[in-house]
C-alpha cells in the first residue's frame, strides 16, 4: 500500500520535472536557435517576430495535444463509429440511429432524461434562489449556506448510498428503518418499496441530484443577489413595494442572467447523469437514462456502434448550450 502511494508521488515528481524540462527546454532552445544577437538589420526583426510567433504555441502545445487526443479526436471517432457495426468494422449507414429511434428502451431513457432535464434544474435553481434570499436575511446565514452547500462535495455514489438508506423498505408490520417509509407509515399508509415503483422512483432519483445541485445554485445566485445595487432595493422599499414584489419585480430580473447560467450549468450535469442511476437501480424499474444506457450498450453488450450512437445523441443535446457558451465567451474575448 505504501509502495502504491510512493509510486503515485513518484509519478507526480516525474511529471512535474518533465513538464518543467519541456517548458524551460523549449524556451531555451527557441531563444538559442532564433537568437537575434549575432544577426543584423532586418534579420533582427524577422527573428524577433519568428520567436514571438512560435513561443505561444510552445506554451499552449502540451494542453492542445492533450485535449486533441482525449477530447477532439474522440468526438470525430465516436461520430464515425456511430455509422459502423457492433465491432466498428462494417459501415452500416444510419442503421444505429434507426435502431435507436425504434427501440422502446431508448425512447424510455430519452423521455426519462427529458423529465430530469425539466425537473432537476427547475427545482435546484428555484430552491437555490429561495434559500439564498432567506440566508441573506439572518445572522446565521453563512452557516446555513455552508450546510446546504455541503452535498456538492459528496460523490454521486456516496449520495446514492445516503438516499438509498432514506428510501429503504421493510415489509409491513416491521419497524421501518428508512426515513421516508417511517414517515409514510406514521401517516397511516402501507410501506412502499419506493425504488421499484415506476415514475415515483425516477422522481426520487432526481431528488438526489436536486439535493446536490441546490447548493451550487444557491452560492452563485447569492453572489449575484449581493451585486444588486442597494439603491435599487432602497428605492423599491421607499415606494412601499412588499418583499414579494421586491423578489419578483426587482431581484429576479436583476439576477436573470445568472439564473440562466445556473440553469444551463445544471442542465449539462443532468444530461451526463450516470452514477446516480447506475448505483441506485442500474436502469431497472423503468428509470433508465441515456448515459447509463450508453454504458450498458458499450461495456456490457460490447456494441461500439450503438454505444457511440447514444453518445452522439447526448452530444447533440448538449450542443445548443455549447454554442451559447462559445458566443458568450467570444464576445468577452473580443472586447478584452
Amino acid at each position, binding site marked *: 500500500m505504501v509502495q502504491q502511494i510512493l509510486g503515485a508521488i513518484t509519478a507526480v515528481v516525474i*511529471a512535474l520535472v518533465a513538464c518543467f524540462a519541456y517548458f524551460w527546454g523549449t524556451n531555451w532552445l527557441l531563444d538559442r536557435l532564433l537568437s537575434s544577437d549575432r544577426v543584423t538589420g532586418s534579420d533582427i526583426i524577422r527573428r524577433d517576430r519568428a520567436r514571438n510567433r512560435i513561443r505561444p504555441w510552445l506554451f499552449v502545445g502540451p494542453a492542445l495535444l492533450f485535449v486533441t487526443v482525449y477530447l477532439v479526436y*474522440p468526438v470525430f471517432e465516436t461520430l464515425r463509429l456511430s455509422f459502423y457495426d457492433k465491432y466498428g468494422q462494417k459501415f452500416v449507414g444510419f442503421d444505429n440511429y434507426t435502431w435507436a429511434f425504434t427501440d422502446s428502451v431508448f425512447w424510455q431513457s430519452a423521455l426519462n432524461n427529458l423529465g430530469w432535464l425539466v425537473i432537476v434544474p427547475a427545482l435546484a435553481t428555484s430552491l437555490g434562489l429561495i434559500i439564498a434570499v432567506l440566508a441573506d436575511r439572518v445572522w446565521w446565514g453563512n452557516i446555513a449556506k455552508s450546510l446546504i452547500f455541503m452535498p456538492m462535495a459528496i460523490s454521486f455514489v456516496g449520495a446514492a448510498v445516503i438516499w438509498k438508506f432514506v428510501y429503504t423498505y421493510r415489509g409491513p408490520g416491521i*419497524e421501518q428503518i428508512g426515513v421516508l417509509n417511517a414517515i409514510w407509515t406514521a401517516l397511516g399508509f402501507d410501506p412502499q418499496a419506493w425504488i421499484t415503483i415506476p415514475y415515483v422512483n425516477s422522481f426520487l432519483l432526481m431528488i438526489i441530484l436536486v439535493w446536490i445541485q441546490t447548493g451550487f445554485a444557491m452560492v452563485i445566485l447569492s453572489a449575484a443577489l449581493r451585486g444588486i445595487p442597494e439603491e435599487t432595493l432602497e428605492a423599491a422599499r421607499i415606494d412601499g413595494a412588499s418583499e*414579494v414584489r421586491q423578489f419578483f419585480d426587482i431581484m429576479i430580473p436583476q439576477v436573470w442572467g445568472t439564473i440562466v447560467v445556473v440553469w444551463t450549468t445544471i442542465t449539462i450535469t443532468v444530461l*451526463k447523469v450516470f452514477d446516480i442511476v447506475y448505483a441506485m437501480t442500474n436502469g431497472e424499474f423503468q428509470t433508465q437514462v441515456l448515459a447509463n444506457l450508453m454504458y450498458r450498450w458499450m461495456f456490457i453488450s460490447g456494441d461500439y456502434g450503438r454505444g457511440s450512437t447514444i453518445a452522439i445523441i447526448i452530444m447533440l443535446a448538449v450542443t445548443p448550450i455549447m454554442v451559447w*457558451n*462559445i458566443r458568450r465567451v467570444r464576445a468577452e474575448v473580443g472586447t478584452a
Partner: protein
Amino acid sequence: MTSIAVAQPMVSRGRFPRIRIGRIFVHASLLFFVALWTFPTVGLLVSSIRDRDQLAVSGWWTALTNSTRLTTARVAEASTQVQENGAWVIKGNLLGPKGASQEIESFGITNADVRGTPAGGTTAMRDGGQITVQANGDYVWSSPTPFTYTGGPRIYYVVGSPPRFTLDNYKAVLSAEGIGQSFINSLTVAIPSTVIPIMIAAFAAYALAWMRFPGRTLTVVVIVGLIVVPLQMSLIPLLRLYNDIAGAFGVEAKGYVGVWLAHTAFGLPLAIYLLRNYMAGLPREIMESARIDGASHFKIFTTMVLPLSFPALASFAIFQFLWIWNDLLVALVFLGAQNDKVVLTGRLVNLLGTRGDNWELLTAAAFISIIVPLIVFFSLQRYFVRGLLAGSVK
C-alpha cells in the same frame, strides 16, 4: 416563497410589530431547509456507528433510545428437568450469556402472541404446564407431569437493549470489505491527476491571456466548447486507443497511467478557462513594465504570474481533486472494477450490489468515501466558492 409573502405586510396590524412575524418565518423556513438538507447525511453518520443488530431493527433517529426487537429462543431440553416440590421444573435463561445489558419486555409462545404476557408473568405452554419469564431472561417452566418433548419449544419475546455505539462497522469495511485498499487506490488516482494538469494548464492560460498571436481567439473558443463535451463521447475511442497501444507494447490496457492521463485531459479545458480568466484580470501595468525591463515571457510567467495566480490555482486544484475523488465513470472504464484497483466509488457500488441490506457496512463505507471531500470542502471552502463563481458567472 410564501414565507416572504408574510414577511412584511405593507400595513402593520395592531400590536404586533410587523418585522417580528416576518423574521420568525424567515428563520423557521431557513431552518427547515437546513434540516432537510443535513438530515440524510446525519443519518448516515449515526447509522455507521450503531450496533448492527440495533441498526437492522430500528430507525437511526431512535439511536439514543432503548431499542426493542422481536426474537426467539428455545427452552432447554426435556432431559434437564428436575423435580421440585412434586412438580417437574425446567430452568434457564432465554437471553444466554450475552444478554447482560438486555431486558425482556414481554413474551409469548407464538410469534403473534409475543406481546401477550409482560415480563414476570406466566403463560400456559402447549406441552403442558406453565412458564414464567423474568425481565432478566430467567425462566421457570413447571408442570405436574414429567416433560417428554424432544427439541425445546420456542419462546418468542420482545427484548429491549440500551443504545450501543461501536466502531466495529468501520473495522469490518476497512479490512474485510476492501475499503482500505480502495482508499489507497483513490489516493493513487487522485494525487497525480490533480497536480499534473495544473502546470500544463497554467502555461496555456498565460499564453491565451497575455500573448497576442493568430489563432488565439479560436483556441479559447475551442477550449470553452470542450468544457461541456460529455465524457461519454471520449470513452469508446479512448478505450480502443488504449487497447491498441497496450497490445502493441504488450502491457495491461487498464492501469493508473491511463487514468492519470485521462483525468488530466478531461480537467484541462476548465482549468485553462478558469486560469485564463484569472490571469487576464491581473494588472496590465506590471506585465508591461516587466516586458520593458527586458524580462522574457517565461520569466514573467514563472516569477510573477504563477505566484500571483495562487488563489486560482488552488480553486482549480480543489475542483479537480473533488471531481476525481468522486468520479465513478472514468475509473470504471479505464481502471476497471478488479479487486486490487477499484476506487472507492466503484467499491461502494459493488457493496450496494452484494451487501444491499447490510446498512451498517454500507453507511460506514460511504462515510469513509465522503470524509476526505468533506474535509477538503470545509477547510478550503473559500477557494472552492471563488472557483465556482469564476467558472460560471462570466
